[in-house]
């Protein structure tokens, strides 16, 4: 839609000092993050570092304990997924969240059904679903009227991704979207991520795959035990540094220093 902007511009989403606990278990410790339109930000971190918790907070699934969200230059309160959707944030969750009793088309249009008058416009939704799935290289799906409960792991993930990219949102967040995908499908999703950014959308992309990070990301943000260890342009780090940031929270000048933990 708009022209791509570099990360020097204003961030579309900015988090300041976000903290979040589950009972006694503090998962996020004052996390700052900036996501820019027209660029792909890779969010990396060890298992259990808090990546999914962070993006669920952005999406309004979890209320946060403290911290600020700024979207498009304004401070916003996100109290539920509906708020996030209204802002123009679309999310593919790691745990997918599909309604198993509905079919592929119904899931893809859930919450945003097309209607003709009061009546659901099944014809147009079915057509649009097929078109989108085709661009994602889905070739083994027998029918778009199949219940998602009967889909393979990769097929489910594709449906979730297709659902998110159907809507031209300002910010697309993808939590390990290629984890269950085959070679060809992964290729399509990476291309899609790049294409989204190139057409001016902001993309936040969680992955454990370093190859993917260095292929599509413009920036990389590393979480270490719930703290943001680094949030830098991809050009400033190499693969070994990113892995160090993930596993130990620091790498050379970058990352957290001991004082952070002692201050806690």
């Amino acid at each position, binding site marked *: 839609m708009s022209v791509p902007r570099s990360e020097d511009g204003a961030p579309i989403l900015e988090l300041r000092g976000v903290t979040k606990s589950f009972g006694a278990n503090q998962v996020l410790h004052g996390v700052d993050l900036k996501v820019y339109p027209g660029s792909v930000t890779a969010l990396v971190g060890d298992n259990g570092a808090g990546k999914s918790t962070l993006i669920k907070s952005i*999406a309004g*699934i979890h209320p946060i304990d403290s911290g600020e969200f700024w979207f498009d230059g304004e401070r916003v309160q996100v109290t*539920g*997924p*509906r708020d996030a*959707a209204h802002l123009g944030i679309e*999310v593919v*969750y790691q745990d997918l*969240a*599909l*309604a*198993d*009793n*509905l079919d592929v088309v*119904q899931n893809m249009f*859930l*919450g*945003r*059904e097309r*209607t003709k008058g*009061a*009546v*659901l416009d*099944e*014809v147009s939704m*079915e*057509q649009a679903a*097929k078109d989108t*799935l*085709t661009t994602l290289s*889905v*070739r*083994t*799906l*027998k*029918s*778009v*009227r*199949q219940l998602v409960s009967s889909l393979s792991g990769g097929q489910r993930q594709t449906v979730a991704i297709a659902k998110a990219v159907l809507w031209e949102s300002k910010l697309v967040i993808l939590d390990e979207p290629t984890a269950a995908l085959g*070679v*060809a499908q*992964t*290729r*399509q999703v990476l291309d899609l991520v790049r294409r989204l950014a190139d057409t001016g959308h902001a993309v936040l992309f969680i992955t454990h795959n370093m190859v993917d990070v260095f292929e599509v990301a413009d920036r990389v943000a590393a979480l270490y035990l719930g703290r943001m260890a680094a949030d830098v342009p991809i050009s400033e780090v190499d693969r070994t540094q990113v892995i160090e940031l993930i596993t130990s929270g620091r790498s050379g000048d970058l990352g957290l220093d001991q004082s952070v933990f002692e201050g806690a």
Partner: protein
Amino acid sequence: MASNTVPTSDVEPGESAPSGFENDRSDGTVGGAVRGYLDRLRGGDLGALPAVLGIVVLTALFFSLRPETFLTPLNITNLLIQAAPITLLAMGLVWVLLLGDIDLSAGVVSGVCAAVLAQLLAEVGVPWYIAVLAALLTGAVIGLFTGTLVAMIGIPSFVVTLALFLAFQGVTLRIIGQGGTVPIRDDVIRALTNSYIPVGIGWVLAAAVIVLYAALTLNRWRRQNAEGLTTQPLGIVLARIALIAVVVVGLTAILNADRALSAAIDLQGIPYAIPVVVILLLALTFLLGRTTFGRHVYAVGGNKEAARRAGINVVRIRIMVFVLSSSMAAVSGLVAAARLSSVTPGSGGGNTLLYAVGAAVIGGTSLFGGRGRVRDAVLGGLVIAIIDNGLGLLGVSAYLNYIITGGVLLLAASVDALARRRAAAGRS
């Protein structure tokens, strides 16, 4: 990671064309559609089959035991009127069950609404339409209350409605108060089950239903076909229309036949309660199957969290479903009151609710949410009414009646379960 394009020409398209969606292109023949249906059955998707089978088997059974009475126009009319209150109640409960919730208070709510109606008519003397409106409104308000407690406060629906089940018994007792029963004398209300549509008008209505159904079905088929989407072959569509036509015409003929037991009297025509049930069935089926609201109800029942993440207002949907269900309970209460021409403190109590839930479940609605249709209530309601009606003709003693009713219910349910189980051999 070379992205090879797949040589589609290599493989035979009919079976495994890697371009996908091959099952969405029907081969357009009736045979193919029938094969598809049998495959679905084998796949465990029995749909209405068990309930329909139950109806057929029970009818055959009772007909063989009481050939001279069971299938007379009089008894069929009785049967339909007997089935109406439980069916209406179940038609509301299906929605609650679709959410994975339960409403134990639905039966007594129907009693409260009927009591409101009766007292307004008897004590205040308002015209019937005001009383009906008030009763429906009472149902809706109760639903709003229940729904709010369940969806906003987050108390499990079992507990909320158990508490309300008790409380509303007290309310009915209070409303009815001195005298113990409130007779209903209003002719319009009583007409629901005690008067009959003139024969001519009955036939016109029947014709209208058939034409409407045919027009809608054919139009839908035409449109899908034009877009090249999944459709059933025209033959099947026409066959379904024919089936509906036969059922409607057959029932109309039976209900329009003279069913008086003595020659002196003239007793014929469709009881007004029947079109009420049919219209509500059509309206609710439309709401559930063809509108955004219905879609969201399925989604909330299938996976609340997914629905929430998709931006659906889960709280609103749940509240609205309880409002709808309690309003249907009110309608059911009205019909039951009309049938008895009076309201007692026990109205809607006893086994009313369990029968209604049983009707929905036997019809095919899942108690765990996400699976069910409005017509399940009608089919299941018929099964239960047939058992009751047939046993009444047999005139067995009370204890046998309990045992046989239970046994038949169990049998009906196990046919279903066994069929699904055999099918499940092919499922996870």
